[in-house]
C-alpha cells in the first residue's frame, strides 16, 4: 500500500441530518459511544498500510481539526508522509458549489505525493475494511477505476449512487438515485484509481464547469473508463439521515456488528484519546443490552442504549432506546425513551421525555430540560 495516497473527502455535505449537524460537520458526528464518523475512514486507511492521507476539510472544520489535531492518535503524525489537511478552496477565487473545486484546489497533494494510486473515500459510510484486498482486486481486473459497493439490505431514503455490473464485475451503469431499494448495489463513496486518471478526471471536469466530483466527474465520464466493482461483504452503514444515524448506532448493540467493527485485532478503529475512568456502576444500577463508554457513572436503569463518555444516570432514572452523547446528565427519577441527546444535555429530576420508535426525539447541545 506504499504506492497509494489516501484522500478522505469531508466536503460531501448533502446530508439530511439537520439538528445534530447544525454545529458540526456530519463527519464529526459522535458515533457508538466514543467515536466520530471520520474515525472509520482514517482508521481504514491506516490499517491498510496507507501512510499518506489527505483530509479535504468541510466548511465547518473546527470540530474535525480539534478531533484529529496532528493525527497522532491514528499514527499519522510522522516525519515523512502522515496526515495533510486539504483546506477548502477560497470562495473569492471560486463561487461554485460542490466538492470538486476543493479537490481541484488540492490536486497537487496527490500529484506530488509520488504515489501511483489514489484512494478517495468519504466519512459518511461506516465499515471496517482492508483496502489491500481492493488494490489487489483492482490490479487483477486491469480496470481504470475500481469502486467499492455493498448490497443494500433494506430500502432507504436519501441520495445514493447505485451501479449495475456485468457478470465479470465491470460496471455497466452508474446513476445517482433519490432512494435505494433492497438488493441494489450501493456505491460506498470509495474509489481507487491511478493518480494520472484521478488528475485527468478532476481537471477536465473542473475546467468544463463541473461542481460535483461524483455527478459531473465520475458519472459523466463513466463511459470513457473501464470501471470495476469490488463488493464489500461486511457490515456497512450509510449515515445520511437522523434515522440512519440512530439505527447505525443501535446496530452496534448487535454483538456480531460490535465485534466486526471494533474488535478486529488487526484493524482497530482509532480515535482521539481521552483519559476517562472506567465506567462506574453503583449499587442501584441495572443495565441491559447497551454500550457504555468510559467516564459514565450509573445508578439507574439503562436498556438498549448507547451512552457516550462521561454520562451520568441518577438513581431511579430510566434510559431506554436512546443515545446520550458526551457529558449528558440524566438526574434522579428522570426518564428518557427513544431520545437522542446531543452533548451536555441535562434532564433534570423526574422529567420524562419520549420520542417515537421510528422517529427519535432530538435534544440539541447544552439544553437543560
Amino acid at each position: 500500500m506504499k504506492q497509494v495516497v489516501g484522500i478522505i473527502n469531508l466536503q460531501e455535505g448533502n446530508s439530511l441530518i439537520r439538528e445534530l449537524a447544525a454545529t458540526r460537520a456530519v463527519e464529526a458526528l459522535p458515533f457508538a459511544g466514543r467515536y466520530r464518523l471520520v474515525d472509520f475512514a482514517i482508521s481504514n486507511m491506516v490499517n491498510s498500510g496507507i501512510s499518506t492521507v489527505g483530509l479535504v476539510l468541510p466548511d465547518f472544520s473546527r470540530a474535525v481539526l480539534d478531533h484529529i489535531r496532528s493525527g497522532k492518535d491514528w499514527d499519522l503524525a510522522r516525519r515523512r508522509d502522515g496526515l495533510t489537511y486539504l483546506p477548502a478552496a477560497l470562495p473569492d477565487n471560486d463561487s461554485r458549489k460542490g466538492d470538486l473545486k476543493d479537490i481541484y484546489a488540492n490536486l497537487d497533494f496527490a500529484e506530488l505525493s509520488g504515489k501511483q494510486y489514489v484512494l478517495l473515500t468519504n466519512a459518511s459510510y461506516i465499515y471496517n475494511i482492508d483496502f489491500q484486498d481492493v488494490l489487489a482486486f483492482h490490479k487483477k481486473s486491469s480496470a481504470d477505476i475500481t469502486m467499492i459497493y455493498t448490497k443494500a439490505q433494506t430500502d432507504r431514503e436519501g441520495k445514493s449512487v447505485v451501479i449495475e455490473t456485468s457478470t465479470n464485475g465491470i460496471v455497466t451503469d452508474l446513476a445517482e438515485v433519490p432512494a435505494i431499494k433492497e438488493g441494489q448495489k450501493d456505491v460506498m463513496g470509495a474509489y481507487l484509481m491511478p493518480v494520472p486518471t484521478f488528475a485527468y478526471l478532476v481537471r477536465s471536469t473542473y475546467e468544463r464547469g463541473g461542481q460535483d466530483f461524483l455527478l459531473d466527474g465520475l458519472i459523466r465520464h463513466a463511459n470513457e473508463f473501464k470501471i470495476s466493482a469490488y463488493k464489500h461483504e461486511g457490515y456497512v452503514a450509510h449515515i445520511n439521515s437522523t434515522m440512519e444515524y440512530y439505527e447505525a448506532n443501535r446496530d452496534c448493540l448487535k454483538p456480531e456488528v460490535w465485534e466486526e467493527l471494533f474488535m478486529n485485532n488487526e484493524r482497530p478503529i482509532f480515535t482521539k484519546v481521552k483519559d476517562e475512568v472506567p465506567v462506574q456502576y453503583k449499587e442501584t444500577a441495572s443495565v441491559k443490552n447497551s454500550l457504555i463508554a468510559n467516564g459514565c457513572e450509573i445508578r439507574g436503569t439503562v436498556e438498549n442504549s448507547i451512552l457516550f463518555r462521561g454520562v451520568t444516570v441518577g438513581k431511579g432514572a430510566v434510559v431506554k432506546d436512546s443515545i446520550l452523547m458526551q457529558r449528558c446528565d440524566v438526574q434522579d427519577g428522570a426518564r428518557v425513551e427513544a431520545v437522542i441527546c446531543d452533548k451536555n444535555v441535562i434532564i433534570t429530576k423526574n422529567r420524562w421525555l419520549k420520542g417515537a420508535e421510528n422517529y427519535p426525539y432530538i435534544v440539541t447541545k447544552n439544553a437543560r430540560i
Partner: protein
Amino acid sequence: MRKTECLAMILAGGQGSRLKALTKTVAKPAVPFGGKYRIIDFPLSNCANSGIEKVGVLTQYKPLELHNYLGSGSSWDLDRTGGGVFILPPYAREKGADWYRGTADAIYQNLNFIDLADPDYVLILSGDHIYTMDYSWMLKAHKDNNADVTIGVFEVSWEEAPRFGIMVTDKETGRITEFQEKPKEPKSNLASMGIYIFSKPFLKKYLEEDGVKEDSTHDFGNDLIPKMLADNARMFSYAFDGYWKDVGTIESLWQANMDLLQDQPPFDLKGDQKVFSSNPSLPPHFVGPYAAVKQSMINEGAKIEGEVDKCVIFQGVRVGKGAKVTNSVVLPTAVIEDGAIVNYAIIAQDAVIKAGAKVEGKPGEIFVVPEGSVVNA
C-alpha cells in the same frame, strides 16, 4: 539538556515478590490496577500534573513490558522537547557493571544523568503506591523551610505504625527529629510515603559518600536518612492527607481495587487530578441483554453477558452467559466462560476460566489465577 528546576526519579526496579503470580513476567510498577491503569501511572500522572517535565524511571527487574508501556512518555503528556521520560536501567561502565544494589545506589549510579539535567531539586518517588498528589506544594514547602530534605508523610493508625518507617517530628515546625524503621514501639504515627525531595548538591554529597561505603545497604530508609539525621541536616516532613495505599501484597492490591467501588469512593479517580494511562483502541464495553452489573468498574472492549457484582473489570475481558463474577478483579483480556463462578479472586491477563469452572477465594485469602493459565471445570 535544558536545565530543569525539579527532576523526578521513580524507583521502578522492584520485583514485588509478595505479589507472586502477578509479577512473574512484569515488574511491580507495571501491575494493572483500577480497571485500566498500571501502578506506575499514578506517580507519572502526578509528575505531569505537578508541572514536572523531566522524569527518570529506574528499572531493573523484568523491565521489558514496563519499557514498552512507558514508550515515549506520550501517554502522560511527557514526550516533551528536551524533557520527558528517561528510562534508566543499570548500565556498564569502564570498571564493569553492577545491578542497582539498593534504592540509593540506583540514584547514585545515575548521578551523571542528574548532573546533565542540572536540577535544583530532586524528587525521589517509588513506583508502587496508589495516590494522586500535586508535588508542587511539597516543593514549595521544601523551599519555604529552606530544607535539605523534605519527606512526604502520611498518618496511619497506631496499630499499623509498626509496619512502616516512622517519622518523629516537631509538632510546630514539622522538622524531623527521629526516624524509626518498623518500630515495635512507635513514637509517632506519621509514616514515610517513600517520597523525598532533596536539594541537589546535598543529595549528591551524601550519595557519593554512601556509594563507596562497603558496609552500607545503599538504601534511603536504612542508610541515607539516618546518616542525614545524625548530621543534623534540615529535614522536614510534609503531611499528605489524601488517599494513599501501598499495594505491595495481593490483599492490599485487591482491597485498593475494592475501595474504588464504593458509592462515594475514598479515592476518586475522577477527582481534580486526572490519572493518565495508555489507552488501547477499544470500543465502549458491551453489556448483553441478560447481564446484571452492580457496584463495579468496567473498562472498554469488555463484553459482559453474565452477572458482575463488586468487581473491577479491565479492557477486553469476556464474561459469558450465566457466569457469576463477584468480589473480584479481572485483568485485561481474561475470559470467564458461560456459567463459570468467580468469587474473591484476581484473574490475571489472558487467563481462561472454562465453562462451568469455579474459582473461589475468601476474604483474606484472595485466589490468584496466574497470567495465561486455564482453569477447567
